[in-house]
């Protein structure tokens, strides 16, 4: 047993780093994903991966294929798109899904324009998006920092985040903090996504954010437990995926996400709030 599950990590430094980076990201993304899902913004991650292109393009225009400027550029543009979408939905008649769709498409088109104009045929995104097997110290530091910031913000503003989702009108009547906290949350989302893209690639980043969160819905009906469960599922998936990648020679990112996907399907079927529990109801009910 040990040689299947433990040895790969003992023997190879890159495996240890991959596991460390992936686990940290799972911890960071789990709660963020739960709130995204509860706010019905589950497709934000995917949209973001396209939206950051002009930022990366600008970084590339000025500094060439250097990761840091491209990442910072991507972060700035990601924030503009996310916060812009939030602002439009708050202060105009539009809802958040539509404003986000509109802004990310504009951003993507701008990005393609910038890239074509420069004339390079290198796939910028291909260069920018990393792989979990190649986590150098900068990348690990980046993910670690993002995790710390995320947890600090989520814990500090927990009640406001919940209130914002549950009864926003009530929150507005007792506090001015509803909107700022929501924007802060969007900022955290972008931070996790962009940092995740750069270090681990889009699939892994978005996948670790949304799949465990989606699965956690079948196990709990309160937000805090859902966050812990999604972190747990994320961590297990990272471990399982890396082991699969090692023993079965599968690409690492997809292996982790498919592990999470398997947990998701199992959760639908066998979760405490899943389908089978429903169907197999004992048929009994209590007297009072």
């Amino acid at each position, binding site marked *: 047993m040990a040689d299947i599950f433990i040895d*790969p990590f003992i*023997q*190879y*430094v*890159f*495996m240890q*780093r*991959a596991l460390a980076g992936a686990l940290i990201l799972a911890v960071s993304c789990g709660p963020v994903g739960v709130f995204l899902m509860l706010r019905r913004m589950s497709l934000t991650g995917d949209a973001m991966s396209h939206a950051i292109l002009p930022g990366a393009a600008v970084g590339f225009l000025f500094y060439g294929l250097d*990761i840091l400027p491209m990442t910072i550029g991507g972060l700035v543009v990601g924030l503009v798109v996310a916060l812009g979408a939030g602002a439009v939905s708050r202060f105009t008649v539009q809802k958040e899904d539509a404003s986000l769709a509109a802004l990310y498409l504009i951003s993507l088109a701008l990005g393609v324009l910038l890239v*074509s104009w420069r*004339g*390079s*045929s*290198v*796939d910028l995104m*291909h*260069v920018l998006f*990393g*792989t979990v*097997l*190649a*986590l*150098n110290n900068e*990348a690990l530091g980046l993910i670690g920092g993002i995790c710390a910031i995320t947890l600090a913000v989520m814990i500090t503003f927990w009640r406001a985040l919940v209130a914002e989702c549950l009864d926003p009108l009530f929150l507005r009547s007792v506090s001015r903090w509803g909107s700022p906290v929501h924007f802060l949350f969007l900022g955290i989302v972008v931070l996790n996504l962009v940092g995740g893209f750069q270090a681990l*690639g889009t*699939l892994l980043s978005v996948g670790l954010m949304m799949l465990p969160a989606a699965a956690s819905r079948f196990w709990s009906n309160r937000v805090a437990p859902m966050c812990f469960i999604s972190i747990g599922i994320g961590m297990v998936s990272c471990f399982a995926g*890396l082991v699969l*990648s*090692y*023993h*079965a*020679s*599968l*690409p*690492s*990112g*997809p*292996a982790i996400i498919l592990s999470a996907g398997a947990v998701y399907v199992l959760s639908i079927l066998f979760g405490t709030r899943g389908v089978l529990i429903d169907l197999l109801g004992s048929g009994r009910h209590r007297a009072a």
Partner: protein
Amino acid sequence: MFKTFRLATCASLLSLSPVLTAQASAAELKVVASFSIIADFAKNVGGDRVEITTLVGPDGDAHVYEPRPADAVAVSKADVVLVNGLEFEGFLKRLIETSGTKAPVVELTKGVEPLRLSDEPAGHAHPEAEEEEAHDHKTGEAGHKHETADAHDHDHGHEGHHHHGEYDPHAWQSIKNAQIYVKNIAGAFCKADKPGCATYTANSDAYVAKLATLNEKVKTEIAAIPPEKRVIITSHDAFGYFEHAYGLNFLAPEGISTESEASAADVAKLVDQVKHDKASAIFVENITDKRLIDQIASETGLKVGGTLYSDALSTADGPAGTYIDMVNHNIDTIKAAVLSQ
């Protein structure tokens, strides 16, 4: 009035003729080359008689290239279109169709013995080469490390216009193959522009001779590398033909295409390879993200030996602006890194 009209017509025709004749003595042939290496060959064969447009320029990655309308325009106006073939250019088929070009599309790998993509760890399933340097082959130590799974993994979902065939397309890495490319180019140019044929043939012969000298030089240089130091690590499996022709052993985590993703098993095998003192140098390439190579290098203590040019030339002011420069740069870099370990 009619007389004036005829006079005017004659005058205008006369005045235009210098322009027409001037054009006739400039570029005869509009050529579109799919990527920078082929473009370099074409320049050497065609000289001033050709006007070349390159689709995937220096430092560009043909594996993930997406063509633009300007490319379609260039192709539609071309007299000859030069491509690599062996499914290197995934974007090509639709580009040709869209452009509606009447120009012949010349696959320069015609006549080349292609290497199959093999998943056997030891030895290749390739046919015996005519090349006389078959002696310097690697001694059967851990051959190519591509699992076919790698070569066909695409997790970025690029609208499915990349798919890779069963052959390794990087044929130009063997200089003997390069000579075939050059001869094919000359043939194509001759067909498209008969008056210039003499020039093309002369240029081609001269360049082929240069390539022959280069070939000898490479062989000598590699012979100077001790056999046990001939295992090298790069980003993606681009050097199969080089390996086959000259006896070095190239390993890579990323498989045939830069679009695929490495598995942990692949990376682990490479790390093992280096650790057991079987790989002597590790290199990044000009078209790929270097982080994976850095990771392997840092884990094994092997320093990155430099940049190799695989699928594209560098810009003109870089170290690999022409094919000959590229080969020289690669072999010098390899030699320096290997012998210093």
